[in-house]
């Protein structure tokens, strides 16, 4: 393997960065081990100073954009009497009682930590003022200002959850905590479809868990003539039962709804989330992902069906910046458009089918955090027999109606 190939195996985020390259990460400039030379020592000191200078930089914002939050310790939340700026698209919730935006501990810390909001501790005087607000209130002279450490200490924040939230926010995603949303829209349970199970004597032992594979196939005693391979494959398909969903019984939940950045996101009627994330801290407990826990997560997952009922179709505008992926997709589309219609459809068909097989359906994202290190895993239900009629599966049927999309080998019909 060449050096470049080896480097590609390591995510740039996994390496400890030299702070001399702040803002533009580099790799491969580090050394193997200390050799005691002054050159190395100086270079190390430079790196350390660069790091400490960056950490010591003021957490600040311009006085014109001053945003003030008031920490209310009794409700473990933050009130923002004058919410301005771009942050409140997805952050915070309107509090009727106080007629202002209210932030949860995670959102509060996020805004303060990035230097976008100053925070004070509330007192009785402030709460009185909040009711009528008929004159100016000078926060600085009347209230105690909190530093970041004091805010963390007061907030009792769940640190693993905060880390995931901040990580995704820094990348520009739109995030809301799940529970809050769930309270507002009463949860509509999906009718648990009783799966029509083949209760024939060959299948029952498998259901009981005795014989994983049938010794005798139900076709053993019938006489059938096959003229096409497709029919043979079709007849020997296994009938896989659906994974039954289970109501949550332990404190194991989907934590966040996450959307890709879109300009006209609405907190009140959010579209179906692009990702549904569950935060798991494995630093001291690795008892995770038992089958029953997966079932619980699937139970909690909001499906597109539920959304179609609740949310008016919001017109999605394209984000301004095109990602590399989108640019590539565009080029691909251009190339495809030069091909003739039937080849184009065949390509689309094969691509879509591969995606269905690879990704399955009903994906959830697990954010696994271990001693402060963040990892993401995507978990989906296999859809190999394409029994789940997702949008993609329907598209396959549109392109080639009547085909057995779940069979890789399909004979041409003569």
């Amino acid at each position, binding site marked *: 393997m060449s050096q470049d190939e080896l480097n590609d195996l390591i995510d740039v985020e996994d390496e400890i960065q030299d702070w001399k390259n702040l803002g533009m990460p580099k790799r491969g400039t580090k050394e193997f081990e200390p050799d005691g030379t002054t050159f190395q020592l100086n270079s190390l000191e430079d790196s350390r100073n660069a790091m400490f200078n960056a950490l010591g930089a003021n957490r600040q914002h311009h*006085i014109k954009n001053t945003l003030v939050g008031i920490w209310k310790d009794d409700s473990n939340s933050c009130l923002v009497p004058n919410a301005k700026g771009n942050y409140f698209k997805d952050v915070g919730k309107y509090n009727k009682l106080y007629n202002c935006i209210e932030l949860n501990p995670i959102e509060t810390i996020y805004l303060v930590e*990035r230097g976008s909001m100053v925070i004070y501790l509330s007192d009785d005087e402030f709460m009185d003022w909040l009711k009528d607000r008929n004159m100016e209130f000078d926060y600085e002279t009347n209230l105690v200002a909190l530093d970041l450490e004091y805010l963390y200490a007061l907030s009792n924040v769940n640190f693993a959850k905060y880390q995931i939230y901040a990580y995704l926010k820094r990348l520009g995603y739109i995030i809301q905590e799940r529970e809050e949303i769930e309270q507002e829209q009463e949860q509509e349970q999906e009718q648990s479809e009783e799966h029509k199970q083949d209760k024939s004597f060959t299948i029952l032992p498998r259901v009981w868990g005795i014989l994983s594979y049938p010794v005798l196939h139900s076709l053993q005693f019938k006489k059938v003539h096959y003229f096409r391979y497709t029919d043979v494959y079709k007849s020997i398909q296994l009938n896989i039962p659906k994974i039954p969903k289970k109501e949550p019984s332990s404190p194991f939940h989907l934590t966040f709804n996450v959307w890709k950045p879109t300009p006209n996101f609405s907190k009140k009627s959010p579209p179906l989330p692009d990702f549904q994330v569950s935060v798991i801290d494995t630093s*001291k407990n690795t008892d995770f992902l038992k089958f029953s826990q997966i079932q619980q997560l699937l139970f909690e997952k909001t499906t597109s069906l539920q959304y179609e009922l609740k949310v008016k179709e919001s017109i999605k505008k394209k984000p301004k910046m095109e990602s590399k992926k989108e640019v590539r997709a565009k080029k691909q589309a251009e190339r495809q458009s030069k091909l003739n219609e039937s080849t184009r459809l065949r390509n689309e068909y094969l691509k879509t089918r591969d995606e269905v097989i690879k990704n399955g359906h009903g994906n959830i994202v697990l954010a696994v955090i271990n001693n402060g290190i963040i990892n993401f895993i995507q978990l989906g239900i296999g859809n190999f027999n394409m029994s789940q009629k997702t949008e993609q599966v329907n598209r396959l049927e549109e392109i080639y109606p009547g085909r057995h999309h779940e069979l890789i080998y399909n004979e041409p019909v003569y």
Partner: protein
Amino acid sequence: MTTTNKVILPVINIDNDPEVLIFDLEVIKYLRIGLNVLGVLTGTLSTFPQQNLFLSVPLKLIIWEVIWLTENNKGILVDAKSYRNDKLKIGSVSKSKTTNNMVIIPSTDNNRNEELITKNQIDIKTFITKYLQNSNYTISKFINNYKYYKHLQNSGYFINPGIKFGGDLVIYPGDPLRYHSYSTIKFNFCDIDEIIVGGRLATSVKKNMILIGYEDENENDKRIDEIDDDVINDLYRNDKEPLTFSIEWSGFG
């Protein structure tokens, strides 16, 4: 014993999921330069708030670092919430300040109050008990894991959590700002397949894998309800060094 020569290790969330988070830059410098303790930076860097490569305070200390600092009398665990509330009562507050039309939010306040530090001190027994309340650690596993860390830390390595590279820890011969790591650490001996998996993975990230463990692992399967003095004594006792093996994936030709 006086508290003045120890750094404050502020504990947040002591009742639910305790975390030691350092906000004081001087403490971060001391830990890194003076003691080879790295921690993990987790906060948004306000000058570059839209990336995850360079992060800022707070510095999260992992559990082994916390115990090591306490054992060696370098740090003192303090309940951050009650300590800061007490300081507020006696009027010690940090004012946010405005300079050059910029509103500045400080990371911490730097006035130590020795009396209140002693008053709000959390002893290591309580801390570990609270830390382990939702864990599936057995006592012996917890103690052994700490001893492996301690062995490496006392040998002068710089240590980071190892899950990124498929181990329990990753060690650096010098400050990782300047030096590459060449080893991942795996706690306890495991079966041959795990060794193969670990060796292959370590080699693909340009490292070797080091197995660390005790010859006679007497597994005490007791779950932890309460940490008593015996556990702390076991934790702090300097008995024989653990065994270490270095493994590298090798191929023919």
